[in-house]
């Protein structure tokens, strides 16, 4: 078991993610968020457990369902919320939105609107770390659905061939949009695909944050020591729809309820309580603080201005005259 500080940190991360996502859902339903949003509710143990053993300088590569990864890696909910609302104070100055959040200052190399678009970016970050002998590790989050993309294969093979410090974390949440993994993924455990690359493949209960943490720590340590990549699969469940507004016709309510009962936060609370790490009141205080933090983030975001329309022409090229060549 990790030390108390780590346990508290992991717990805090989980409840901060949950609070953030519940607020995003509310704001989306209130019509305040443009575009699509994909919520991480029910999957908090994965990002929280995987990112806990990472250093700030380590890299993560995220997905369309990336808010949890951001928070777990240390991004600020204020700037995240501002981005999701399309405000100029957001991480990407409103150019990205939920599907393209990134915080390079904490090594979060970006969400991705292309499913499976991140695998090789992670491989490249790991290659770079290896070449610079920086000791950094790159973690790539991806879904069960993404594991069917060709990019998965090329990335894992290359990471293995070059023995890169890379950990591939499959968030097996049972569905890719409306498609059950049992239908579209030709193996029960995505981790079995590791055999095809001569690397370790590990499956853990993704709703048990300590199991995720231990497996991730081992994989990250191995990567850092030069032991090469690992494929780590966390079996979990997406409690909410694929996106906010999803009619969810493809699954039974009872299935959702069954998984709700396995809520990773409740489960961790039981554990923390049982082990005497945190008392109920302490947990309540952490949750209240998380809710306050998120409310404050919402105020910040709502009070922030929209970008000036002409900001659309900046940031296309680095160190160029702004907007040159955009045809405006």
């Amino acid at each position: 078991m990790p030390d108390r500080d780590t346990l508290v940190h992991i717990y805090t991360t989980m409840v901060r993610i949950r609070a953030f996502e519940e607020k995003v859902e509310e704001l989306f339903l209130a019509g305040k968020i443009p575009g699509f949003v994909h919520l991480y509710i029910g999957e908090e143990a994965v990002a929280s457990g995987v990112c806990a053993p990472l250093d700030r300088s380590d890299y993560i590569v995220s997905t369309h369902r990336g808010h949890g990864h951001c928070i777990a890696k240390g991004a600020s909910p204020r700037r995240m919320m501002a981005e999701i609302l399309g405000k100029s104070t957001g991480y990407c100055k409103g150019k990205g939105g939920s599907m393209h959040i990134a915080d390079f200052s904490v090594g979060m190399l970006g969400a991705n609107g292309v499913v499976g678009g991140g695998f090789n970016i992670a491989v490249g970050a790991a290659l770079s770390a290896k070449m610079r002998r920086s000791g950094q590790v790159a973690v790539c989050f991806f879904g069960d659905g993404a594991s069917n993309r060709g990019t998965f294969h090329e990335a894992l093979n290359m990471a293995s061939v070059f023995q890169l410090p890379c950990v591939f974390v499959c968030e097996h949440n049972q569905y890719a949009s409306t498609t059950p993994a049992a239908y579209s993924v030709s193996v029960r455990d995505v981790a079995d695909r590791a055999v095809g690359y001569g690397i370790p493949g590990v499956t853990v209960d993704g709703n048990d944050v300590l199991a995720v943490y231990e497996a991730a720590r081992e994989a990250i340590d191995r990567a850092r020591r030069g032991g090469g990549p690992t494929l780590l699969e966390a079996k979990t469940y997406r409690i909410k729809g694929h996106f906010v507004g999803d009619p969810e016709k493809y699954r039974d309510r009872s299935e959702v309820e069954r998984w709700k009962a396995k809520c990773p936060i409740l489960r961790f609370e039981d554990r923390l309580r049982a082990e005497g790490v945190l008392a109920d009141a302490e947990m309540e205080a952490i949750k209240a603080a998380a809710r306050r933090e998120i409310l404050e983030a919402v105020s910040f975001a709502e009070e922030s201005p929209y970008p000036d329309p002409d900001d659309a022409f900046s940031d296309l090229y680095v160190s160029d005259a702004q907007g040159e060549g955009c045809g405006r």
Partner: protein
Amino acid sequence: MREITFSQATLEAMAEEMRRDPTVFVLGEDIARQGGIFGQFKGLPNEFGYERVLDTPISETAIVGSAVGAALTGMRPVADMHFADFVTCAMDEIANQAAKIQYMFGGQARLPLVVRAPDGVIKSAAAQHSQSLEAWFVHVPGLKIVIPSTPYDAKGLLKAAIRDDNPVLYFEHKALFAMKGPVPEEEYIVPIGKADVKRPGRDVTCVTYSIMVHRALEGAEDLARDGIEVEVVDLRTLVPMDIDTVLQSVRKTKKVVVAHEACRRGGAGAEIAATIAEEAFDYLDAPVVRVGTLDVPIPFSPPLEARVVPRKKEIVEAVRKIV
């Protein structure tokens, strides 16, 4: 005439062609269980079963690649790209395989394949879910490119595309799916390769397609109030292109605006404008003006998106520049 949505019109085209020809089938992500993101496949499995309406893994490469293989061996697949942005993941299958196989193998093979690709800007979908990429394929010999603007054309052209023995890319603008328009109950086909004058006019020709047809028509309405009559030519298909209809209009109006939602630089509008400038040089009284999205990835935030994507205003301004 009854009015149905664009989405419904494509659904009817699918159902009619699947009924007519048992080799027609459709494959893609979330099309059977979900019915397509825009409802464009809704209910098809009820009539045709999950064998002919195939949900696939997230594997755009395999979707198009296997459609190529199926087309070569007696089937008529319709492959759905989910979002046109993801044709990038099947670019080899489209440009190096589908487009070249008939030619490269000396005419031994036929490749009756339709790739449906919902494109365009809708609701802050941002850089990777908003693109219009038809221009890439205009540059790839061996493909046909269909890009309708109305429910009527969408239905008639989809049926033509499915019956065509060649690979056809069918781009359908996401913001059009919900649009209603008249569609006859009786069966009809809109032939590939014929433009349609959606509004006659004597002063300026606006050559356009897909959603920009509607923005051009709105603009024409405004301009008519000032006595400027814009002729709106809806190309409907980019390859083969009905350049005769375009040139006929240009010889009359002597002034041209070319408009599309795709990025301006290197867009299909460049090919159209260059062709007009080359073939109607002696008729033109003013430079051909091009309207397109300004050359940045589509930004997320509404004021940014609005700044770069052309609407009625940009068309009106372009017309005013040359009258």
